[in-house]
């Protein structure tokens, strides 16, 4: 049996890689993919605790997170598409209209 801490450390590594992707990459689509990786890392944590606490609630929560993530991807990609129509770019550095 793999100890739970191994899963938790793996999930921490994946989360940190996702966070680094958000900070490093400037293509809005890849930033989005990194956000999805972070969500998945948290899902792994929830499933791990659900397994080792022998409680199915964590898995139900993961299913709801997946529904929200799917909704988030649909809306987020629609925003990227409509921004691309206006600016002809997906570079997040160019999207600074709300910045002052």
């Amino acid at each position, binding site marked *: *049996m*793999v*100890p*739970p*801490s*191994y*899963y*938790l*450390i*793996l999930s*921490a*590594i*994946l*989360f*940190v*890689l*996702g966070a*680094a*992707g958000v*900070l*490093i*990459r*400037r*293509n809005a*689509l*890849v930033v*989005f*993919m*990194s956000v999805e*990786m972070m969500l*998945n890392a948290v*899902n792994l944590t929830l*499933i791990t605790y*659900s*397994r*080792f606490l*022998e409680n*199915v*609630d964590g*898995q*139900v929560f*993961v299913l*709801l997170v*997946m*529904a*929200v*993530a*799917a*909704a*988030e*991807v*649909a*809306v987020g*990609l*629609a*925003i*990227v*598409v*409509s921004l*691309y129509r206006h600016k002809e770019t997906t570079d997040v550095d160019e999207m600074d209209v709300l910045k002052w």
Partner: protein
Amino acid sequence: MEMVVFGILAAVAVAAAVGVIAQRSAVRSALFLLVNFCCLAGLYILLNAQFVAVVQVIVYAGAVVVLFLFVVMLLGMERAEEAPDPRRYQWIAAVLLGVLLLVGIVWALIPAGRETIQALAPTDNVREIGAALLTQFAIPFELASVVLLVAIIGAVVLAKKRLEG
């Protein structure tokens, strides 16, 4: 045996995650993301969460990655390679902050220790989830459908072309 499978899946998942953030081309990032999601589905099976593993493959590896690829192709990003970042310090800062965050999380996990857990009996996973979703969590389950409906309407409104006149 279980340890070996875990090791392989974990190594491939981490390598794919590095691939996502290291690739210049958005299409390759999306394909590495697919590998990452599939490895996570394998880990869910190891954790006796078969239903979530199948949903992971259908929703993430199926729908989400395909949607990403659609948008990448639609915007013609597959030919555009990201130019190297003119500001190197941002990259260094991201790596430093990432290592710091990782150390912080692992530090928080140390009290949990690395004690080996006695093997837990596998449970009737799908039945348990179904029962929990439709009794204790019935209201969140129904609200998820509202969230998805709002997302569909929002996506259509945002992505549609402005009507003339």
